[in-house]
């Protein structure tokens, strides 16, 4: 396959960026999208042009590093991470536009790399259960209902990639936040801190500059782990309970 790539190039956070066009040749449909970018970078290096910087690590869909807007869609046309997207999803001669995540709370660091440290700070504000090492009771001393444990697991599969924020017209991180609130809120161990957690995490979410949720649902459509929209309902319910209780 031969492709035309339009890629966002930006020297650093302080500089302004622009779209640049590159022709890339000899792409196999068995390549992953990131291997296609590797090929481009190898060609750029040969020509003496600086390679395109992009985030990636595990390349098996679980670390959450990859963060590309492909033809305007977070992670591209399939419901998966960019690293698991393959070139057979594109056609010969196509023009592909590649941008970094679009969100004010994720500033561009360089080219296609953004700063997602806001997610760490949201977790710091309460996305945990307070238990020091060594103080845990016997694991089976507190049974957890199976359906609740399964729901907790399903939403705990969030990889923190930020596609939900990038896809949201409001730049809201409500899906990310709702997934964590639901994960910890569904388990018996998460109950003691439940109200304080949601109040504190929502406050941090807002302070980071993420927008509000207006139930558009682009987040869940873009989510490579298919986190369902109802975690946002759970988030709102827990927040309502917490506010009523005076948190």
């Amino acid at each position, binding site marked *: 396959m031969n492709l035309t790539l339009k890629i966002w190039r930006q*020297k*650093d956070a302080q500089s302004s960026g622009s779209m640049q066009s590159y022709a890339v040749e000899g792409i*196999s449909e*068995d*390549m*992953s999208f990131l*291997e296609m970018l*590797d*090929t481009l970078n*190898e060609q750029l*290096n*040969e020509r*003496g*042009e600086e390679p395109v*910087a992009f*985030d990636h*690590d*595990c*390349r*098996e869909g*679980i*670390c959450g*590093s990859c963060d590309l807007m492909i033809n305007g869609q977070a992670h591209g046309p399939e419901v*998966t991470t960019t690293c*698991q997207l393959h070139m*057979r999803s594109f056609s010969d001669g196509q023009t592909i536009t590649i941008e970094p995540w679009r969100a004010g709370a994720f500033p561009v660091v*360089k080219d296609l790399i953004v*700063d*997602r*440290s806001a997610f*760490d700070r949201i*977790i*710091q504000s309460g*996305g*945990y*259960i*307070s*238990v*020091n*090492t*060594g103080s*845990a*009771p*016997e*694991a*089976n001393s*507190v*049974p*957890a209902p*199976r359906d609740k*444990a*399964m729901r*907790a*697991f399903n939403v705990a*599969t969030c990889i*923190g990639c930020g596609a939900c924020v990038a896809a949201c017209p409001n730049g809201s991180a409500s899906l990310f936040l709702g997934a964590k609130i639901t*994960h*910890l809120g569904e*388990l018996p161990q*998460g109950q003691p801190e439940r109200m304080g957690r949601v109040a504190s995490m929502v406050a941090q979410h807002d302070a980071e500059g993420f927008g509000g949720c207006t139930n558009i649902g682009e987040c869940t459509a873009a989510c490579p782990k298919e986190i369902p929209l109802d975690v946002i309902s759970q988030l709102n319910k827990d927040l309502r309970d917490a506010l009523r209780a005076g948190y």
Partner: protein
Amino acid sequence: MASTADVSGLTVLNGPPEQRSDDAHGYYTPAPEKLVDAKAPTGLIKDRWTTRKMDNRLVNPANRRKLDIIIVGTGLAGGAAAATLGEAGYNVKSFCYQDSPRRAHSIAAQGGINAAKNYKEDGDSTYRLFYDTVKGGDYRSRESNVYRLAEVSANIIDQCVAQGVPFARDYGGLLDNRSFGGVQVSRTFYARGQTGQQLLIGAYQAMERQVAAGTVTQYTRHEMLEVIVVDGKARGIIARDLVTGEIETHLADVVVLASGGYGNVFYLSTNAMGSNVTATWRAHRKGAYMANPCYTQIHPTCIPVSGDHQSKLTLMSESLRNDGRIWVPKNKEDCTKDPRDIPEEDRDYYLERIYPSFGNLVPRDIASRQAKNMCDEGRGVGPMVGDFRRGVYLDFADAIARLGEDAVREKYDNLFDMYERITGENPYEVPMRIYPAVHYVMGGLWVDYDLQSNIPGLFVTGEANFSDHGANRLGASALMQGLADGYFVLPNTIRDYLADGPFEQVDEAHPAVVEARTSVQERIDKFLSIGGSRSADSFHKELGNIMWEYCGMERSEEGLRKAIDMIRELKAEFWSNLKVLGTADSLNQSLEKAGRVADFIELGELMCIDALNRRESCGGHFRAESQTEDGEALRHDEEFAYVAAWEFGGEGGQPVLHKEDLIYTAIEMKQRSYK
């Protein structure tokens, strides 16, 4: 010379090894004395850890905040240690190259985590987990360390559940278990196929809680490039801020390396793209011994290479071998045919043929090696990669006929989907193609029982050290070791060292600091100034091919010698023909890669020397010269029941081999058989 007599006076079940062969003669210098773990515990094996915890000195809570701990890496071992030491009140600085601690590669582990809880009442115990782990490691691990690992395994599950790790549960709401990796009890706890992810998020959240509490400071997008050793003690690191390019000095009372394994020396592996050996290799060059570097685990069920563009390999759970039948065509001319058109009598179900009693369920190393043998004979399938077709069929047609497609779908749905996404082929209709891939390294920096390297103040945990898995790791044991080290072992051993602190303040102008900083700066300047024509990636690929060919699933004296020569030539070309664009004072992924590849090249040479010296087959290390008449692995305990700990011999010098005898008082050595 130290004897192998157990210090506690217990009966020693094996004699001291006496090496007769010397294949690596000329490539190394033997150390005059045997290496002895000065912290080796005494007494009955079941009491050793309790005694050590009692004997290790405590640090007064008021003094803890005056003590600075640097931890490099935020996977299970590093993240858990940062959280626990932060909770204890120490002042922790945590470093990772990723943009968040949550992305460390522990996250990719699929299967599960072992613990001797005996919830199934099926006869499991601490001793049985210990026994299985030592045996699985082919009797090349330290028994005291492994027993401790088994002992703390139950506490790990308690801790993780309390943190909110959503393990699988049964209908009564209690924890579920499954069996794993050929053992006869069900002791594996799991969270569907994403156990590593859930455990890591637990450790990450515990660590972020300490960041909020102010005890842990996290430095993301930072890469450690040098360890600072002052008066013989590790006192800090030099790190590069990967965004600004700034070279930073971080000083501390103690340094912990939890930087993971070096499987990426093979270029293609199931490791993350960024996984590297730099932290441990830099420490090795500063004097830390590298132990058993040749012990590599190669996993049999990975998705095969599809072409030269391939950047990484994806693992599929071993459970597929429970129902899939592995075969290749009997005739080479059939290799390009549609497999569905190859009649039954022209198929070679080679594992069932060679190992009638275990069949497709032979251990990982055997399944991997036989797949390679078939492909080397020219009977591999799939696309040509280099001179061979590198793939064998894993066929579910029989299982689908026997159980029905729905039953197969229920068991393996997510794996079949993943396979189809990557290959574009539907495994319900066409047999899967699989091939082995490098997955884990058992070797790593040498540590004593306290997880301290031979450099005082430098501790090493998780996959980065060598201590628990011997020559082969059992499934679901990597997660166990990472968390055991991070939550329970290191916090109880490091305090004995820190009881002597805070150590004398080190000035940034100290010659040792200046030297470390200068060497980092000079290396970076060198990478950018070579001005050759090849990318770091292309050197990495070439190194990977050499390692895979000659230091992979089967190693021979002739091949290893050839590999050492080839790596030396590659190293010379790297330092004269490398091309790195961009600048040092900005985010520069090519520059990061160059540093990692430079270290992989040096490591690769040492791995080959280690493999050359060890003229026996054990666990993941198969030497062509050491096999039974049937082609099975043959161990030589009387020569090689020792840990090979290599000391850096200086630039252009020969590494020095220190041998630590393995002493068994609680388990008797036996040969494996799977026929």
